[in-house]
């Protein structure tokens, strides 16, 4: 796929809009849906990984230091991680802040 989906014209579409290459959903930036974003106080984090287990988007992974953090390209800002995080590491803030 030479062009990204958002650059494609109607003539670039495959027959019947068939997707011929795997992994095309990876290009879709669901992060644009977000109105709130998670912020972290890693001092409190015990690296239990519950946030990653509960994340419906599956976009939470471990960073270099081993702390769990959402990939904001995909994070829709649902806040489930903040709700489930019992050591209260995660706080949701408005995107405008």
């Amino acid at each position, binding site marked *: 796929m030479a062009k990204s989906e958002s650059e494609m014209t109607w003539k670039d579409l495959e027959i019947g*809009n068939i*997707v011929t290459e795997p992994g095309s959903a990876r290009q*879709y930036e669901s992060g644009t849906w977000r109105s709130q974003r998670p912020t972290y106080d890693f001092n409190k984090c015990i690296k239990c990984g519950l946030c990653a287990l509960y994340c419906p988007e599956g976009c939470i992974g471990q960073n270099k230091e081993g702390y769990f953090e959402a990939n904001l390209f995909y994070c829709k800002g649902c806040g489930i991680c903040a709700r489930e995080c019992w050591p209260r590491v995660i706080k949701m803030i408005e995107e405008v802040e």
Partner: protein
Amino acid sequence: MATRTGIEVSIAVADAVKMCNVDVVAAYPITPQTHIVEHLAELVANGELDAEYIPVESEHSAMSACLGSAATGARTFTATSSQGLALMNEVVYVAAPMRLPVIMAVANRALSAPLSIWGDHSDMMSVRDTGWIQIVTENGQQAMDNTIIAFRIGEDQRVLLPVMVHLDGFNLTHVIEPIVLPAQEDVDKYLPKNRFPLPLNPDKPVAMGEFAPPFIFTETKWAQEMNLRNSKQVILQAWDEFNKAFGRKYLPVEKYHSDGAKVLIMTMGSAGETASVAIDELREEGMNIGQVRLRLWRPFPFEELREAVKDADVLIVMDRAMSFGGPAGPVASEVKSALYNQAKKPKVVSYIISLGGRDTTVSSYKDIVKKGIEIAAKGSRNEYEMYGVKE
């Protein structure tokens, strides 16, 4: 050798499907379509047709199975009518944008309520905007021929679209007509193998029926529109080559004494033949009248229609369906739209006839012509006329 045989039209349509060597039939019986799929089930069961017959539990499943089948590159057929078409509606919409060449015969019948098993075009109009190619036939021969032609059009690499062949319930499906059954070797020559370009294949996986976000959805719809519009050239070519091979000619708009006629009747479907008899009688009485028959409902043949009616002063359009609270019958609305911006155009009078199996006779057509000419001259307080309604 082609042979002329007295045969029920539904059986002839099923025989046409057999001659096309269909791979999969998924269907659910419904009056007045039942004889078509019943005969196909019989042909499969007794070994005359090597195909998968899927006796599904509903029309929604029938069309769903057909999509899956067509996606593997199998030659696929189904048939339905009225409530069955309404039930499969959701899936009917999916076939065209996914470019799956399912072929479907629709035995046109009224929609409930009140319940009517008899013929009209309400079911056809309920799927107008599904993106299917839609051919409307007038007699048994046309229904049989166009069933064969539909496979050739739909599976053409330049088209890859589903095709509906409409035939009026009972008026066509249940009558025995003299029909020329083509020879198998001629059908084999006319209809190439189905070569669906990207079939479902575990060795080369693809994703079909994906979702489209706002940044690409408009493009998919325009691609669909261009695809359907461009199919017309292939339809014309398929009809032309059918004529060369079998000696029967089909056109998107067929004319009957219409060149130079000042008054025209327009029909779609089996009503056309009765109307032709009325035209003959009126011409014998000295009236300058002709007929145009709409054969191709989608893609709509704008140029051919404009050309066919350009000399007329009055165009009386017959509809066998209603658009409640709307401007006219569905065919008349289309015709008015096609003509509105033309410098020279006939007055269009819209008549609703033959709902739920009511007959419109030769004398009724003559009456409609008389009244239609009057309305064209003096106007009417109605947006459209409802013929024969008891006041």
